[in-house]
């Protein structure tokens, strides 16, 4: 394993960088927000990204993907993080595609993965039910019926839920609400009777939805793989997504910091650049160290997925917790260092602050991941 990028990786990074800055700059997010866009993403740009092989980055070639690996997908996420690009990378590529890949039958993979890789299908992952991330606490019930299954319950914070062609729902097929086992992934196509999708408008302008299932009738084939076995895959699916979102955060963190540094060098007060004041210098230097540490753990965690390392869960929690905390610190400091202009909507810095809060709550905040890390280490 290596922290030094290969030539191929450098080239992927360049491709992703120019794509993000040309097709998905921050102005794109502003337009989606200001025009109250119904979809909340640019489908055209997403399909163009898919044409570059980026939507199928983590999908094997046998299922239409480009099988780039996570070290490479991480670079794409990083560049998208820099421009706050609204894409279904987290919902579809990291969460749903991995659930299908790990739990699905070959037939399901062949049917579901190629359209994802082509950028034609957005698939959302419906997991959480309460006010915070709690992947083991599932009360949405999946009950066997004569011809298949019946699904009842409610999911919240379903990323890209309102534009998804299908949902993968984490449902309880056996046991009490917080039993570790008895979970099943079920596929619910858009428009299935009994499914109510309500878009929730979040502070970062990105997409999420609340989804209700009222006695939804599903065929037996809706189950990904075998009933009751989702638990074996859930942690891996979530850990890959946590690491992926940490990579997105890393990009956003670096962008925020670079913009702030440029401001410190150009903004003059008392006749000098404010970056010459030790009160700001030391804080900037301290942030630099935090960012370097974040970069290392995110890079290592991405490589841990590619190498199938046994400490993946620990690294995922370390990376998610560290990236979250750094993102919150850096954006808060960035707004403060920009002064008055930092709290205006005109300046992009505040958009990063908003994104940080949403990333924090996505797939577990840092306290959640410290608790998990400690449990994994047995204390």
């Amino acid at each position, binding site marked *: 394993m290596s922290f*030094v990028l290969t030539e191929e990786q450098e080239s992927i990074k360049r491709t992703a960088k120019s794509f993000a800055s040309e097709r998905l700059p921050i102005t794109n997010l502003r337009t989606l927000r200001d025009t109250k866009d119904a979809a909340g993403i640019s489908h055209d740009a997403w399909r163009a990204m898919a044409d570059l092989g980026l939507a199928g980055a983590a999908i094997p070639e046998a299922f239409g993907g480009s099988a780039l690996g996570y070290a490479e997908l991480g670079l794409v996420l990083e560049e998208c993080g820099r421009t706050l690009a609204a894409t279904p990378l987290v919902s579809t590529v990291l969460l749903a595609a991995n659930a299908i890949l790990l739990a699905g039958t070959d037939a399901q993979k062949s049917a579901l993965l190629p359209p994802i890789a082509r950028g034609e299908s957005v698939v959302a992952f419906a997991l959480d039910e309460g006010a915070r991330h709690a992947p083991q606490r599932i009360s949405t019930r999946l009950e066997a019926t004569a011809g298949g299954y019946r699904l009842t319950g409610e999911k919240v914070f379903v990323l890209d839920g309102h534009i998804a062609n299908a949902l993968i729902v984490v449902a309880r097929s056996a046991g009490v609400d917080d039993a570790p086992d008895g979970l099943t992934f079920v596929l619910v196509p858009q428009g299935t009777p009994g499914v109510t999708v309500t878009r929730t408008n979040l502070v970062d302008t990105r997409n999420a939805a609340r989804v209700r299932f009222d006695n939804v009738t599903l065929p037996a084939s809706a189950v990904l793989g075998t009933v009751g076995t989702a638990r074996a895959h859930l942690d891996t699916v979530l850990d890959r997504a946590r690491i992926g979102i940490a990579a997105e955060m890393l990009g956003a963190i670096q962008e925020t910091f670079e913009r702030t540094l440029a401001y410190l060098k150009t903004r003059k007060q008392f006749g000098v650049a404010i970056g010459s004041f030790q009160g700001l210098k030391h804080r900037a*230097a301290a942030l630099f160290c935090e960012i*370097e540490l974040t970069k290392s753990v995110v890079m290592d965690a991405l490589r841990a997925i590619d190498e199938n390392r046994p400490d993946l869960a620990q690294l995922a929690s370390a990376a998610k917790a560290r990236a979250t905390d750094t993102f919150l610190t850096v954006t808060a400091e960035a707004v403060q260092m920009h002064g008055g202009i930092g709290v205006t909507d005109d300046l992009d810095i505040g958009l990063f602050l908003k994104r940080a809060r949403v990333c924090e709550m996505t797939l577990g905040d840092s306290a959640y991941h410290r608790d998990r890390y400690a449990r994994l280490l047995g204390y």
Partner: protein
Amino acid sequence: MIDRDELECFRGEVRAWLEENCPKSMRSPAREDEDVWGGRRATFPSGDAKSWLERAAAKGFTAPTWPKAYGGAGLSGDEARILEEERVRIGARVPLKSLGIWMLGPVLLRFGTEAQKVQHVTGIARGEIRWCQGYSEPGAGSDLASLSMRAERDGDSYVVNGQKVWTSHADKADWIFCLVRTDAKAPKHEGISFLLIDMATKGVSVKPITLLSGASPFCETFFEDVRVPAENLVGPLNGGWTVAKALLDHERSLISQIRDAAAANEESLESLARRYIGLGAESGILNDPSLRDRITQANMDLLCNKLTMRRSSEARAAGLPPGNETSMFKLYGTELNKRRRELMVLIAGFQGLGWEGDSFSREELTRTRDWLRSRANSIEGGSTEIQLNIIAKRVLGLPD
């Protein structure tokens, strides 16, 4: 690039050499009082420690990457890494701890004259001379370049007058490398020279300083009309600041490496917490949730720091230009170590408060004193604030 097979063949040779030459009693971690520092007044905890040093020095393995002509083994970076891996694999002690090897030697190899290399570098590699560092002065701490100890030319000698402070183990060292003022009129960075002084010279005296921890690793060192041969000047006259900065880089990475190695050999925070605080019978987690969170935060930061050091060494191995990472590692490593030491004392509760006596185990007393000692980490070798200045200026390019 050396062939992989050749390297593996080298590994075989090293393994055999270590097996034959490293005494069995040297294959366990050394307590602090068992460390071997060499020098004219060298003390050894055992005959094995002495012969381990002699054998390693004869092979050049005390300073593996230095040229053979000056007492090293002339190994490449890859070979030295293999030697280190094999040493760690059998748990063998470092045969010689030495500021000369860690700090002065690399600088003399770069800036020294041929005669200086032959005399001093070889003596360092063999463990014959123990060195200490004369940088800080009572009036020159963080503002090191304002130092005032004078060296005036008189015939073939310099006459040195002044005082150094925080000289580590000056009471046990044979020689001292000093920054001295050789031009009082020049701007402060441009009137400094780098001078090597034999501590046995008339006019040199030493007084140990007692720290909060009760230990006295540092001294005040006084110089009164000390005559130093002019050939002991390293680098150009009044060009000592460049030499000094190169050496400080070695010192910073050294301090972070020592902390890292110490942390690797010590009991983990969670293991300590299991003993002193305990796990809940039902919950299976530590009985103090707030402390548990702080322990985990420290563990994660330790992991991130370790990964960052690895990332930096991989970048250097790949030939990428070095950044100013040493400042970052010095800064973060020492702050992290202070946090860890504080947590260790906190975890032990009342048993973390002992100063002496039978109510506390040896381990507990050491832990408390280590915590006190760690307070100096972020001050010595360039304070945390100085490292932040360096990062702001050299890495981030922020204006003065």
